[in-house]
C-alpha cells in the first residue's frame, strides 16, 4: 500500500503517529530497568555490599558455573515443553467443539474462562489443597477408583511433583488458548470450507489444508505469548512446592525470586535476568524466522 506522496504531515506520518504513543509508554517504563540491569550486573551489590564499583564480568563468570541456575533453566524448559503442546491441542479441540451452535454455549464459554481469572497464587493454593492427602479430594477420588485408600503425596513425591504442577498449569491456562483460538476459528472464511466439502475433502484434510493456515498467525502469537509466560512461571510452582523437594521443581523465576527477593543478590540476579532475556530473544527470533519462511 503506497501512501500518498503529497499528503498532509498528518497523512504522511500517519503510520508513525499511530505507533508513537505506544512506543513512548514502552520506553518510559522499559528503558530504565534494562539500563539498570546492565549496569548493576557489572557491579558487586549484595545484601551486605552496596558499593557500586565495577567488578567486571565476575557475575557472568559465576553464571556459567552455577549448576543450580542451569538446572532451574532445565526445569523451566521441561515444564514449558510439556505444558505448551497440551494446552495448544486441548485449546484447539475445545475451540472446535464450541465453534458451532450449541445450547447454553454462552454459559459454557463464560464458565470455561474462569480458571484464567483466578489469581495464580490462589489457584496454586487451591491445587495444593486439592492435592493435599488429608484435606483434599483428589486422593479421595483416586481411592474410589482404586478401591482402597491411596496415599499420594503430590507435592512431595519427586515423581509426582511435575505432574501436579503441570496439571495445575494446564487447568489454569488452556482456557486462554481456547478463547484465542475460538476467536481465530470464528473468523475463518466459511465459504472456503464449504467449497472444500463440495470437492469431497474429508474433515481432517480441510482442517490441515485450509483452517490451520488461516489461523496460523494467531496461533503463532498465542504459542509465543503462552510460551514466554510459561517460561516465567512462578506463582503455581511457589504455592505448590516452593521449588521443592530440594530444588527439584525450581523454575528460573523461583530461582530469581529467592536470589533477588530473599537474599538480595542484586547484581547476580541482574546478570541472570539478562541471560534469560538473551536466551529467550535468540530462541524467539529463530522461531519467528522459521515461521515466516514457512509462510
Amino acid at each position, binding site marked *: 500500500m503506497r501512501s500518498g506522496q503529497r499528503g498532509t504531515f498528518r497523512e504522511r506520518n500517519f503510520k508513525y503517529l499511530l505507533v508513537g504513543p505506544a512506543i513512548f509508554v514502552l520506553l518510559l517504563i522499559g528503558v530504565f530497568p534494562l539500563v539498570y540491569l546492565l549496569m548493576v550486573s557489572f557491579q558487586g551489590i549484595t*545484601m*551486605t555490599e*552496596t558499593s557500586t564499583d565495577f567488578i567486571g564480568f565476575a557475575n557472568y563468570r559465576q553464571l556459567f558455573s552455577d549448576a543450580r541456575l542451569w538446572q532451574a533453566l532445565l526445569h523451566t524448559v521441561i515444564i514449558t515443553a510439556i505444558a505448551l503442546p497440551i494446552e495448544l491441542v486441548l485449546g484447539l479441540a475445545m475451540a472446535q467443539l464450541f465453534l458451532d451452535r450449541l445450547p447454553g454455549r454462552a454459559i459454557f464459554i463464560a464458565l470455561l474462562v474462569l480458571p484464567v481469572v483466578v489469581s495464580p497464587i490462589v489457584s496454586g493454593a487451591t491445587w*495444593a489443597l486439592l492435592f*493435599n*492427602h*488429608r*484435606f483434599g479430594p483428589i486422593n479421595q477420588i483416586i481411592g474410589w477408583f482404586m478401591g482402597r485408600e491411596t*496415599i499420594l*503425596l503430590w*507435592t*512431595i*513425591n*519427586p515423581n509426582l511433583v511435575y505432574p501436579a504442577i503441570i496439571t495445575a498449569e494446564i487447568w489454569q491456562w488452556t482456557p486462554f488458548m481456547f478463547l484465542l483460538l475460538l476467536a481465530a476459528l470464528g473468523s475463518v472464511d466459511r465459504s472456503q470450507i464449504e467449497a472444500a466439502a463440495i470437492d469431497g475433502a474429508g474433515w481432517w484434510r480441510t482442517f490441515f489444508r485450509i483452517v490451520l493456515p488461516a489461523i496460523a498467525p494467531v496461533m503463532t502469537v498465542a504459542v509465543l505469548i503462552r510460551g514466554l509466560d510459561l517460561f516465567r512461571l512462578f506463582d503455581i510452582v511457589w504455592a505448590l*512446592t*516452593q*521449588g*521443592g*523437594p*530440594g*530444588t*527439584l521443581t525450581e523454575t528460573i523465576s523461583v530461582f530469581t525470586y*529467592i536470589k533477588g*527477593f*530473599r*537474599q*538480595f543478590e542484586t547484581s547476580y540476579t541482574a546478570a541472570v535476568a539478562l541471560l534469560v532475556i538473551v536466551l529467550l530473544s535468540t530462541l524467539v527470533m529463530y522461531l519467528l524466522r522459521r515461521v515466516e519462511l514457512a509462510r
Partner: protein
Amino acid sequence: MKNCFASMCWKGLRAGFVIAGMTLAWAGVAHAQSAAKTAADAAKKICAGKTITIVWEAGLQSLDPLNFSGPLWEKETGCKIKVVEVPTAEMFTKIMQDYRAGSGAYDALNVVPSWMPDLVQAGALEQLDNYVDKYGYRAELQKIAPTYRDNQMKVNGKIYGFPDDGDVFIMYYRKDIFARDDLKKAFQAKYNYPLAPPKTWKQFDEVGSFLTDNLKKEGTYGASFFREAPYAMLMFQERFRVEGGKFFDANMKATVNSPIGVRVFTEMRNENRFMPPGVEKFGFVENLATFLKGESAMTISWPPYGRFAAGYLGSEKALDWVPKSTIAGKVGYALPPGGHPQLALGFALSVATHSKNKEAAYLFIQWLNSEEISTKRVQLPYTLRDPFRDSHYTDPVYLGLWPDAKDYLAALKAASQTGLLDLSLIQTDTYEEALRQGVGRLWAGEDPKTILDDVAKQWDATTAKIGVDKQKAVYNAWAAKSGAYPK
C-alpha cells in the same frame, strides 16, 4: 566531718540523705511505672497530627494496631498510626527494598529477631540506646523475660529492637489420653516406665508409636507436627542442638552433617510413620485442625495453640478460621522433649533509619512494648502476640482466662528460661533455605547423610562468599548468647 556527727549537723545531713533517697526512689518508681505514660506524654508534644507508619505482619497480627493499640495511641497522643500490612513471607523483602530505595516510607517496623544482624549490617535499623536512656526505658526493658531480653534485643551490644512476642515451641498433649488406665497399664507393661509426656526424643518415639497403635481405630494418632519445610527446619534446629549438635566448628566449617545431624534427620522421618499420613505437608493450620479435632495426642507448636485449644476465642469473628476445639479442658502443656524449646521466629519492634519521624516512632514502640500496654496486648483474644515479660506470666487477669491458664503460663515461663535462639548470622536466610530444601528432600525419601552433606557444602560455600572471618565474628557473637546452645 568529725564535727558533723554532733547533733544538728548530723540530723540535717541525715534528713538530706533521706530526702535525696526518697526523691531518687520516687523518680525510679515513677520512671518504672510510667514508661507507657512517659512515652505518651512525650509523644503528645512532638506528634501533633503527624502520622507514624508501622510495618506489621498481615492478617491476624495486624488487628492489634488496627483495632486496639493504634486507636488507643491516637486517643492518648494525637498521633495517627498507619498500619502497612505485609504478608509474612514478604516482610523482609519489603523492608530491605524500601531501605535500599531510600523512600523512607516506613517509620516503625516489626522485624523477626533472626533478621536483625542482616538488617543492622545493611544499616536499615536505627540504634535505640540514646532514646532508651532519654526516656528512661532501661528499667522496664530489664523486665522482659531473660531469654528474649538477652537474645533478641541487641546486635553488637547495641539495642536495635524491643522483643515484643514470646514465640516459643511448647508441647501440647491430651491430658485425658495420658490419664487412661488401660493405656497406662499396657504402656508400663511394654516399656517399663510410666506413660507420661515424653522428656526425651527416644521416649517420644515410644509413646507416640504406642498411642498410634492403640488409638488409630478411634481415629487418633499419637502425635502430629507441622512438618512442612519452613516449620520443620526450625524444629530441626532445636532438636539438633538439644542432642548435642553444633552448627559450626571452631574454624567456621559447617557441622550439621555430623552423626548427630544424620541421626536427628533419620529419626524425624521415622516418626512420620506413626503420624497422620500426609503429615509432611502439614502447616500451622493443618496441624492445628488435626489437634483441635482430637485426631492427635501430642503436638509441638507456638503458644497460640494453647489459647485456641482452650477455646479462648470469645466469639471473635477474626478467629473463625480456627476449627472449633473439641478438646477444651483436656490439654496439658509441657516443654518439648529435651527441655530446650526453640524460640522460633518472634518479633521485635524497631525504628527504620530512613524514617522522617524517628523520635515519634520510637515513642510509639516504647509505649507498645511497655509493661502496662503489652500486658493488655498479649491478652487480646485475636492477637498472636504471646507473653514475653516476667509480669505477663503472673498477670492475674491472664491467669483467670481459662481454667488451665496457670499451667499454660507456667509452661511458657519455663520455656522462656531455657529457650534456644534461632540461628542468626549474616545472610541467615541462605543458610535456612539450604536446610529447608534439605527437609524437603528428606520427606521425598533421599538418604539423610547425603542430604546433610549437601547442606553443609552449601553452608560452607555461603560462608566463603561472605568471608569466613566476617561470618565467624557474627557467629561467635551469636554463639555467646545464653540461648544459642543448651547449657
